[in-house]
């Protein structure tokens, strides 16, 4: 099984250069201050993300996984440690190489689906004709062909989240950050969206950081899982998931899958 993980990486480094991580975090911590009170939001975050990886950050509420996502998005600063995104082979522009998907689809109610997908392109001033072309391709990628001219309320929750994923890819970002994107969906839709996300990830070749509190979801999706614990908020573990791709739902019943999930349950003090 070990041999399969090498092919899991979508991007091959150019000849002659060693595989450098796309994201490098070392000893990252952040403290929120309000008045005299200090609240440790995240500590000890040390892990690398290779180009084209799908890394799942898992942990309970208040463990700092969402904070870390915001640090990666450049929305928050950090107090200690090193955060480096990009490498000579994969340069990173923080102003336009970030795509974001949240728990709520956050589609603009007054815009049709196609125009919703185009929002980041408008913000970045990307030429509209080319962007529209790409938006249609992306809607096809997420399985929403035929819904371009619908309004968000005409789509189900799962379909709205598909549109949000298409929106996160419109400006062709190198890094896509997802904050519990399927957390509000029902269990069956969620399973379906997990499979869809793996397919979209493979086809787009993006590096994805995926925050979830679903342990099984983290193992199923991640080529790597980073575990966080709360009280105090810190990173507790970081390991590769050596399950072959493409992943199928029956893998969840395999012994190796159970080994991974038990490892996380134990870290979270639930076993």
């Amino acid at each position: 099984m070990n041999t399969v993980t090498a092919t899991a990486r979508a991007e091959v480094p150019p000849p002659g250069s060693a595989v450098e991580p796309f994201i490098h975090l070392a000893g990252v911590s952040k403290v929120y201050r309000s008045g005299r009170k200090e609240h440790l939001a995240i500590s000890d975050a040390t892990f690398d993300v290779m180009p084209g990886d799908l890394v799942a950050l898992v942990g309970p509420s208040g463990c700092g996984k969402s904070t870390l996502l915001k640090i990666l998005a450049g929305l928050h600063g950090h107090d200690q440690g090193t955060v480096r995104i990009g490498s000579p082979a994969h340069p990173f522009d923080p102003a336009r190489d970030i795509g974001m998907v949240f728990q709520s689809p956050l589609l603009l109610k007054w815009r049709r689906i196609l125009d919703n997908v185009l929002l980041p392109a408008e913000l970045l001033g990307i030429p509209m004709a080319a962007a529209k072309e790409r938006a249609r391709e992306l809607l096809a990628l997420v399985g929403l062909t035929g819904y371009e001219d619908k309004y968000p309320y005409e789509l189900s929750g799962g379909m709205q989240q598909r549109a949000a994923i298409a929106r996160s890819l419109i400006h062709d970002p190198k890094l896509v950050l997802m904050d519990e994107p399927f957390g509000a969906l029902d269990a069956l839709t969620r399973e379906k969206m997990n499979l869809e996300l793996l397919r979209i990830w493979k086809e787009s070749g993006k590096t994805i950081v995926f925050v979830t509190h679903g342990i099984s979801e983290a193992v199923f999706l991640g080529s790597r899982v980073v575990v966080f614990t709360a009280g105090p908020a810190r990173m507790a573990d970081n390991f590769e998931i050596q399950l072959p791709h493409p992943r199928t739902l029956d893998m969840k019943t395999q012994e190796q899958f159970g080994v991974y999930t038990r490892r996380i349950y134990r870290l979270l003090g639930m076993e």
Partner: protein
Amino acid sequence: MDLLNSKLGRYTLGVVAHLLLLLCWYLFVRLGEVPRFVMPSPADTLAALFVSDYGWWANTAVTATEIFGGYALALVVGVLLALLFTWSKTLEALMLPLLVTLNMIPKVALGPLIIVWFKYGVFPNSMMAFSIAVFPILLTTARGLREIEPDLLDLVRSLRGSRWQLFTKIQLPGALPYVFAGMKVAAILAVAGAIVGEFLGSDRGLGYLMLQVQVTLDTPAMFMAVILITLLGMLLYGLVMLLEHLFVVKDARVS
């Protein structure tokens, strides 16, 4: 059952309800032998419209001018102030508590003052309509502009979107449903404001006419005046609804 489920069916029921009210009115006056000066029949009321001395057209036009003029001003001032507040937090923190207090003043109580300041006529009555209609528009618009999803803000910031982009692409269209919610409340209030103004001091308009015919106990004319005022209100409200229909996506409307 079909009547309830189709749009046409619902309209039909609405019309039927109005006709039933007319019928009840007619039967009550006819069978109860109610004197004309207490309650005129629908026919008597309609007949009042043909008393040319009353200058229905001119008076309706005056009242309409007051209502629509005051309302239009309230819309412009209300929305502009709300926009100012979103651009300056200090201004908002300074002005909003004051506006809430001002909103508590019963605007009707300002009537005598408005007459002192502006004499009487179309302008002071428009001011009356304005003063009562501006607050709901201002307060709901300000609220609409404030309501912005934190995650959406993050999305824009992660792409280094400008303040202006945030404003034009998200805040402003997002606030539109709230503007309309305020406009609907204000439409009803503007009509009341104009009429109260006419009651307090004026020489023209439907409210003024009501006071004139009250002296001669011409109740049918008073009824007719009330009906015309109501129709003016419905016209304004309908106009707002029409605009909302055109500019706000169904799902985004605030009731």
